[in-house]
């Protein structure tokens, strides 16, 4: 597991439910949409996470110094959980090794959000991580 991401996940694991809500909202509040320098609307559908209720788009790129960066767009303004997870991933995967991104355990969704998610929401959030992993695999193949 990537150290920075694992640190955030562990942070969430040790919280009570109310603290968890507050921190998740704080992450959702800090959500930054993909800048126009990376993508502009209408976004390509192949960037859209399949089956995510909130309409999440993901871009994985290698920056000028060779590190991966991840950008997100959340279509549903009410998609708070999706925004929170995207912010966590953006922060936790900053400068991560590409190979280690592929091995992220999608169980982090449970570890962050707990068991309060419906099956559908859980699968949608897992889909965000899987989309990142698919894109990173392509980046590795192309490099």
């Amino acid at each position, binding site marked *: 597991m990537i150290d920075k991401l694992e640190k955030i996940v562990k942070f969430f694991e040790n919280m009570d439910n109310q603290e968890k809500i*507050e921190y998740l909202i704080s992450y959702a509040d800090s959500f930054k949409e993909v800048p126009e320098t990376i993508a502009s609307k209408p976004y390509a559908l192949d960037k859209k996470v399949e*089956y995510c*209720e*909130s309409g999440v788009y993901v871009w994985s790129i290698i920056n000028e110094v060779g590190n991966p960066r991840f950008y997100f767009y959340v279509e549903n303004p*009410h998609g*708070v959980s999706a925004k929170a997870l995207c912010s966590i991933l953006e922060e936790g995967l900053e400068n991560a090794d590409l190979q280690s991104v592929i091995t992220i355990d999608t169980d982090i969704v449970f570890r962050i959000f707990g068991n*309060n998610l419906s099956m*559908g929401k859980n699968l*949608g959030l897992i889909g965000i991580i899987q989309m990142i992993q698919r894109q990173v695999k392509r980046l590795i193949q192309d490099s």
Partner: protein
Amino acid sequence: MKSNNGKEYFSKEVLVTTDWVLQNLDKKEIRIVESNEDPLLYSTGHIPGAVQIDWTNDLNNPLVRDYIGKEDFEKLMSKNGISNDTTVVFYGDKSNWWACYAFWVFKLFGHTNAKIINGGRLKWEKEGKPLTREVILYQETDYKSETRNDTDIRAYRDDVVFHIKNGMPLIDVRSPEEYTGKRLHMPDYPNEGALRGGHIPGALNVPWAKAVNDLDGTFKSADELERLYLVENHLNSEDDLIVYCRIGERSSHTWFLLKYLLGFKNVKNYDGSWTEWGNSVGLPIQK
């Protein structure tokens, strides 16, 4: 409440406007309840004074696929400062899917004094009406609930089987793709465990979204709803009707409008819906 073109809905008192809510925010006899698809949404800001009731954590029995019982409902009401005579006003995201679901569950327990905010959270936000993160802890009440009554507005699998055998109408409110079996889930949503695609034999397909104005999530006018259900789909308010979707939330929305906005006398929500029917051994489907 009048619909957009002036014609009144059947039970006009059960649907309230965002303006009415704003004018009645301070009334002690009213409790505003938010129910959302995303349970975090409430904490990002809600109508002042509103409490949150979450379908997964508050209304469902954690051990049986069923709703909570009388005692847990009483505790839930008490915790949220709701008395037997409190007017409960529901709203939420997704054009009030979950608000209608919670409303329906409240009706199972005989809490008759309940309303829906037309347009729900989307309309409230679009109008720039106030939202707050302040959570008010209300004084507990001594709520006395009826034993849950599932006979009048809830359908079980066996009721649906009986319905089919007797050629009575069913409405599948899911998307056309789900209805035809092209998809096992609605577009952009994950597959929540359905093994087969299709619909219950004989069911009409009237997607829930046809009853809603996209821009603000409000219900369409009484005339438009009548045209959709009575004219285009040849239903009658005297029909013995069952509605279903995937897990019962979208069909709660249709159940609400049929019963309260169009005055259908006998409409039930089959909350087992496709996740039960589509997976059950021995039950027929159509594609």
